[in-house]
């Protein structure tokens, strides 16, 4: 049998040579059953040496008066050598002064001389139960910290891929923003400078949470960028990115992604949609159009999926708002959904510049949701067409 792997190890420290055989004799059942193992030291110095060499000692049972180093000094040094142990002091009956001193130095409990072994058994059990509970709490705390740090990593990855600067052009204006959910969703947007003055706009929502979703987000964004720079047609770009994501997708993740190319020369927007919510075009006259559906499935789900594309013409002053379902599916404390209508109402008078458009959306959603928890990332990207 393994060297009593499950046994608790107890270090007994006393200068009286009689104690060792007595403990071994009176505790023999617990020793034989593999519940406890005892190791012995004659004084504080020897006890610290044993603690330093043997990291498996769970508990120290120590006398107070000993040569070289007494029990009270030993208590002071134990946390440096073996912080994960519990100490119990053996004191003279009624010696409250030393008992108080021992408790103040971190002893968990005390027993008195002459040793009552029934009481000692109860004390040992109680001490070890406390130690186990503490160890469990400590391990949950460490697990929780690991989860939090994973969320932190995912959140940093997400923030790092969002554009921080928006292109400046006489022909158009672009602005975007994202408010991450507490548990990190998978929204992102991107702005790509293409040939001939064209600009690519992408908005996306990756399913799932945490680091795997963040990695999938990074992959989606990188593949989109790489593909979009070589291919003009948004439909072809999505087809290509879909296949690349599908081929290496063990975790069954997917991303809804809408990709559009704005041509300021023609003032036209060509887009293809992989399962994302459709953008809204707010006209300069205060009316709006939801961009027509182009029937495309979320990326990463279906091999060989094809993506149709459509083109809309814009007039100066038109604003196209791309958004994720975190906007329309924001909930308030009454359990109501923000919904499409509230989004459209924001712009009953035509939107102004892009920054104010984005701010108006985020402020309205935030006022609506109040202090209700935010379950999903909220992301918006706006493009405003100017004169040539």
């Amino acid at each position, binding site marked *: 049998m393994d060297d009593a792997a499950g046994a608790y190890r107890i270090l007994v420290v006393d200068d009286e040579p009689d104690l060792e055989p007595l403990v071994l004799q009176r505790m023999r059942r617990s020793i034989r059953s593999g519940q406890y193992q005892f190791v012995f030291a004659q004084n504080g110095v020897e006890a610290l040496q044993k603690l330093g060499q043997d990291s498996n000692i769970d508990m120290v049972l120590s006398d107070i008066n000993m040569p070289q180093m007494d029990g009270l000094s030993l208590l002071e040094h134990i946390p440096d050598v073996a912080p994960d142990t519990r100490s119990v002091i053996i004191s003279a009956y009624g010696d409250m002064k030393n008992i108080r001193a021992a408790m103040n130095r971190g002893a968990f409990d005390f027993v008195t001389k002459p040793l009552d072994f029934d009481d000692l058994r109860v004390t040992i059990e109680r001490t070890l139960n406390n130690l186990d509970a503490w160890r469990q709490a400590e391990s949950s705390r460490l697990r929780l910290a690991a989860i939090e740090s994973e969320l932190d990593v995912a959140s940093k990855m997400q923030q790092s891929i969002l554009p921080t600067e928006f292109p400046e052009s006489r022909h158009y204006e672009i602005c975007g923003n994202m408010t991450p959910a507490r548990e990190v969703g998978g929204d992102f947007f991107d702005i790509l400078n293409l040939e001939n003055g064209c600009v690519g706009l992408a908005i996306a929502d990756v*399913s799932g949470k945490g680091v795997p979703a963040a990695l999938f987000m990074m992959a989606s964004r990188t593949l989109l960028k790489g593909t979009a720079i070589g291919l003009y047609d948004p439909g072809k770009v999505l087809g290509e990115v879909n296949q690349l994501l599908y081929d290496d997708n063990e975790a*069954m993740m*997917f991303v809804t992604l809408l990709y559009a190319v704005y041509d300021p020369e023609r003032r036209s927007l060509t887009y293809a949609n*992989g399962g994302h919510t459709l953008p809204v075009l707010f006209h300069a006259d205060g009316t709006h159009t939801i961009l027509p559906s182009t029937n495309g*499935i979320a990326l990463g789900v279906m091999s060989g999926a094809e993506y149709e594309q459509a083109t809309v013409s814009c007039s100066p002053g038109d604003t196209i708002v791309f958004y994720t379902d975190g906007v329309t599916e924001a909930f308030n404390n009454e359990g109501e959904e923000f919904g499409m209508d509230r989004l459209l109402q924001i712009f009953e008078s035509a939107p102004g510049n892009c920054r104010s458009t984005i701010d108006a959306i985020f402020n309205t959603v935030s006022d609506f949701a109040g202090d209700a928890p935010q379950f999903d990332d909220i992301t918006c990207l706006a493009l405003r067409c100017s004169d040539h």
Partner: protein
Amino acid sequence: MPIESRRDAGTLIIQTEERVDSANAQAFYQELDSAIESDDKAVVMDMERLAYISSAGLRVILQTARKLQQQNAKFAICSLSGTVREVFEISGFDRVIDIHSSQEDAVAAVNG
């Protein structure tokens, strides 16, 4: 509310809960995982009670569909509310998941 499941003449019929979002998607997946046996060959998910599904919930449906495909089982969903159907249509999932308007139609489809 957790899912409910029953077997009717060899078809596993699962009633979904009212809401599947990122907060309960993992639990939803585990419930489905324990409800579905490896020898099930016909599975219908009735979404009559489902009022809201987020992309995290869609992923669970997709994982379940893929798992059933691997065990050569037929899978269909039915009784989607207007909003839930819209989510399946917008995401394009209506093209990879067999959707029926009634439980009878769905049961007939997975046994066909």
